[in-house]
């Protein structure tokens, strides 16, 4: 289980980095910025569900 949590967390962190990058690069484009903000909110839920355990 620990391995699985670590593996999932790794993917979540990669996603987060990419979503943050997307948000930054698309900061002048409403369609990109707002959608990437929503994406980050969803990624935060994944952090609450998985990453918080990985970081215990």
């Amino acid at each position, binding site marked *: 289980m620990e391995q699985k949590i670590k593996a999932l967390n790794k993917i979540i962190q990669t996603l987060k980095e990419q979503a943050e990058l997307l948000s930054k690069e698309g900061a002048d484009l409403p369609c990109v910025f707002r959608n990437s903000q*929503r994406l980050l*909110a969803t990624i935060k839920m994944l952090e*609450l569900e998985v990453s918080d355990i990985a970081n215990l």
Partner: protein
Amino acid sequence: MGYVDQPYWNPFLETMSQRDLKRLQLAKFKRIFTWAYEKSKFHRSLYEKAGIKPEDIKSFEDIRRVPKVEKSMMRDIQRKDPFPYGDALCVPLDEVTEFRQTSGTTGQPVYQPDTWQDWEWWSESWSYVLWAQGYRPSTRVFLPFGYNVFVAFWAGHYAAEKIGCEVIPGGVLDTKARILKIQELRPTAMMATPSYILTMADTARKMGIDPASLTIERITCAGEPGASIPGTKKRMEEAWGAKVFDHSGATEIGAWSYECLEQPGGVHVNEAFFLLELEDLETGEIIEEPNKRGKIIITALDRIAQPCVRFDSKDIGMWDEKMCPCGRTFRLLKGGVIGRADDITKVKGVLLAPSAIEEVVRAIDGLGDEYEVIVEKEGDTDRISLKVELLPEMEGKKESILAKLKDELRLKTNLGYVIECVPFGTLPRYEGKAKRFKDLRKH
């Protein structure tokens, strides 16, 4: 095993040992406390007065030194800058995407801002509720509530979508139209207050439709404690031929608890997302042992726009001594929310919780679902009267039913009542939170 066969929304968290859950709660409490301390003027001022800083939070004993927040404190800061939330707001106003407010049952409503992340968190918390109660992508859900400023079942709607259910918003329809919509679209699940579930059943019967003949298999109740009151639960389940599940939550807190498929006689506290402390009503000590009533102090561990840190909910609960056979390690509150500290009142010198009256009335066969309690002064003494409805077909058994009611009330509440039996269908029916207990005494 595919994900739909998974009994838990999150098996990592829902089956985590209590030891690890405590570690997680402590870490998350530190995080939200630090956030509130750094971002909210209101919270910072409160904590500075108490002499507590984020670095002081190292144990649960330290958490207990953190001042509680009461609803009245939230009322005081609201409608001020930044309008309309006041200085407990932790994010810029343009990050707020959701407005909700409390129902105002106990005074001026409190406004509740949420960011989109908070709203995701609302639906995430509700996903625990619905998944545990058997909602799956194949479930067709009907929501017979007025979509408005009250949070009510809004997050239930979003959670059902997140799970993958098909969601039918039964908003601006009257009760008859909602019954017809259920008949037409054949949903298998529904969410409403216990009062409204009973009102809908009553309306369906008047329309010549047996609600149990409709397609509803599961019902999620919130807003009132009825789904954990055995007599009320039984009435709803029999009326609809469905399983009825309880859920407790609040606008200022979030969706913090849920009954699971095992129906263990209580609700699981989502201990991964919330820290629930039970406080002794007299000494203020934290209660860890089972079967002892206490006031629920609760922290939403991940809500950011307007944090909820050690919020005095005024709700009453008690820990169950048993763990649930469902395998969840989240502890159970026996009987769900069993009352409110500010509802408990003295009548003729006896402490009375209004829910005890509901427990008696709803457990007696032959009585209708509705009742009304009025407490008033008669000279220097209290007078408590109870109006009930007899089911039309039970007229011949009126005397024995009322005698039983009187005896049970005396036994459960230690009080004598003036009981009046009114014609069936004349007491008010409720769509939202019911107001069946009226204290007319001037305190």
